């Protein structure tokens, strides 16, 4: 019943093809994004957003994705200066992109910690109206006090409560979206809970999708449960086949408890790619990009993030430190914390010794390797295999160049995916929900 399953062109033997969902992630503020390349353009001009969004729509992608970070990162008490930084506010950019795209979904990452449900429900419903049903919200739960310093309530939220608040937030938001039945007039909402008190009328009629699509990104057990209970899409970092399959099975298994079927939640790992005319050419390009991503300065910062101490006196082309990391370091702020620094350090040192790698070479080897590297045909085949093998329902592609890092993929890989029958050749519906094959949210009975 969903658009995920397309009729197979092969005779009976082959299993039905699973169609994939694709999304385009605007290059982010970490060292995945290469800014030293001559082709790297502005990360802030609207023209860059427009180019990537139009490219994604040309490739018949499901949606365009913007991340969020509410405080500039700091390292050793100073603003981290080595990576691309400076982003606009997501919902505003997407509202503008609605003017230059027709079908592409528009996904904004917005914190459930440093916002209030009434205002955000209204902004998302506005985007859904203004785009004819293409809005999505990536619910994130970052709650650190460092970020809180930019907001009225500071670091008010206990980390343990991050998903409790997020769940109440989304539930309240949905109540507001449901409060104006089709054809009816607003019914007052009265929500009273541990995190929110919301009473009154919502000012927007039901938006084209009813509920904008809900995306979740977060990896803890609580995060996965939250996704299983509430989300339509999961954005995950598990981008290898084995890790992807394990994650996929785990999250899908959590759905049944909530009375949901497996197709109602799409799992989309964030992935990177490098194309070449031959396999060797692609590998060579990938290596070049890795060296651009891990500059000597960036290698030391990566090392300091693990060790938690100042290592600026180290030579990036020399050996790793021989002492153990400081487990309680506050060196890096505004980043996802490394769970077990000692284990990471041991792994890095073992690799460095085994292969004779320098600091920079070790960082290149161990962090952020590209997910799909090869000829367009090989990449298309591997991506299809991930989806067929239930490691993913699709992918959020993260180009390394702004804004034309997706051009090659859309020109060369998309036609092959379409030929295989695993990617749509035309949009069938108008809304993001329809692209994703998601059911319409149950409509409250209209009155009057």
């Amino acid at each position, binding site marked *: 019943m969903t658009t995920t399953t397309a009729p197979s062109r092969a005779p009976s033997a082959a299993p039905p093809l699973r169609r994939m969902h694709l999304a385009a992630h605007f290059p982010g503020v970490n060292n995945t994004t290469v*800014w*030293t390349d001559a082709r790297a353009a502005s990360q*802030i*001009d*609207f023209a860059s*957003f*427009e180019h990537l969004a139009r490219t994604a729509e040309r490739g018949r992608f499901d949606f365009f994705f913007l991340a969020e*970070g*509410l*405080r*500039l990162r700091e390292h050793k008490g*100073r*603003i981290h*200066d*080595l*990576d*691309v*930084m*400076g*982003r*606009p*506010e997501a*919902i*505003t*950019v997407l*509202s*503008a992109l*609605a*003017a*230059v795209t027709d079908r592409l979904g528009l996904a904004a990452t917005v914190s459930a910690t*440093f*916002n*209030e449900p*009434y*205002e955000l429900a*209204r*902004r998302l*419903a*506005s*985007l859904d*109206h*203004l785009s004819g049903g293409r809005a999505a919200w990536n619910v994130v739960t970052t709650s650190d006090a460092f970020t809180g*310093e*930019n*907001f*009225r309530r500071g670091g008010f939220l206990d980390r343990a409560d991050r998903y409790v608040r997020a769940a109440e937030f989304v539930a309240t938001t949905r109540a507001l979206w449901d409060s104006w039945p089709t054809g009816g007039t607003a019914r007052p909402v009265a929500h009273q809970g541990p995190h*929110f*008190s*919301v*009473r*009154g*009328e919502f*000012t*927007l*009629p039901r938006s084209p999708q009813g509920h904008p699509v809900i995306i979740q990104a977060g990896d803890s057990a609580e995060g996965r449960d939250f996704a299983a209970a509430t989300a339509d899409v999961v954005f995950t970092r598990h981008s290898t086949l084995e890790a992807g399959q394990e994650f996929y099975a785990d999250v899908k298994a959590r759905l049944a408890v909530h009375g949901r079927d497996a197709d109602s939640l799409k799992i989309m790992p964030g992935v990177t790619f490098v194309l070449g005319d031959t396999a060797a050419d692609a590998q060579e390009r990938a290596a070049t990009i890795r060296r651009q991503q891990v*500059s*000597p*300065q*960036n290698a030391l910062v990566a090392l300091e993030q693990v060790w938690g101490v100042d290592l600026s006196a180290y030579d990036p082309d020399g050996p790793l430190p021989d002492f153990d990391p400081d487990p309680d370091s506050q060196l890096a702020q505004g980043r996802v914390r490394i769970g077990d620094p000692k284990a990471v350090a041991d792994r890095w040192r073992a690799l460095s010794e085994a292969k004779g790698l320098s600091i920079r070479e070790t960082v290149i080897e161990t962090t952020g390797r590209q997910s799909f590297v090869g000829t367009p045909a090989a990449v298309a085949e591997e991506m299809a295999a991930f989806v067929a093998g239930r490691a993913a329902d699709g992918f959020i592609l993260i180009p390394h160049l702004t804004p034309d890092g997706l051009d090659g993929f859309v020109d060369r890989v998309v036609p092959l995916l379409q030929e295989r029958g695993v990617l749509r050749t035309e949009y069938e519906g108008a809304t993001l929900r329809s692209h994703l094959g998601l059911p319409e949210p149950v409509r409250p009975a209209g009155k009057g």
Partner: protein
Amino acid sequence: MPASPCALRPLHLAFALDGPARRARRGPQAYDPEHYVRLARLAERGTLDFVTLGDSFARPGPDALAVLARVAPATGRVGLVPAVTTTHTEPFHVSTAVNTLDWVSRGRAGWTVEVSRSRAEARLFGRRDAAPADALWREAGEVADVAARLWDSWEDDAEIRDAATGRFVDRDKLHHVDFRGSSFSVRGPAITPRPPQGRPVVVVDASARAAREVAAAHADVALVRAEDPATAGDARADLRERTRALGRDPDRLRVLVSLPVELYCSGDAVGLADLIGDWHADGVSDGFHLRPADPERDLARLVDGTVPVLQHRCLLRRFYPGATLREHLGLPRPANRYAAARKVAP
């Protein structure tokens, strides 16, 4: 006709896109972006300085800033000025959203600072009770202040992309704002680079006494609701005096008379041109902000009837000489306070 023979004081015109709430509630056009795009394009044909869109959490209709962001790529010159309230919102988010509107419109953004006074709005958030106007406007002034500091928190040349040292920015040109207001604090810097205009144009409706000091301290454009030239002139003089008292150059503040208009026929449109011409000649205002009874009808009459008469009388320009809203208003791009402070420091 070339612009040069018209050596008069420039006249600034702005138009409110919102209809009365009753209409918006009934008409589906309030939720159709094409409605706003049509109006903004029409305003642009009339070379108006900017259009405004009001907002409140209790008003039926979509988020005003989002609507004007949707309009931005469909227009090229006209200024886009949504209302954003400061009472139940986060100062940091407000600053970022207005900054972003400036980026997506390539330097055409403004912001009408508003407060949320009603109990109904307070109950939608459940964080604080409704408060008196004075307290809310004091906070609004602080929000305008911190927003401007955040816009300045990236110096214009902070982004260096220096491959030799691996540095994307010069962090000495990024600044924590460390703002402490009476009800909030913000550490900074902004997460968004300084907007194209340096600072988007800040608009304050200074008709209410409680808002007047905020207008004098923070506004680039003050709106004054006045029914006659004498009232308008007094309000303008008062605002200019307060501005001067705060150490600002009063010539950096544009005072526009905010007038309700209802243009039933082309005769009304010419009558409006007469009125605008008379008041402007008296020197009681820098221009007009027109609040229509029916936005579509009244804007069409204004652009086809009033604007040509004003142009013919040499009171209004025939084209946009600049690209940004500040340029339309004849306001310079503000110097960055942090860059200036860094240069002064030893």
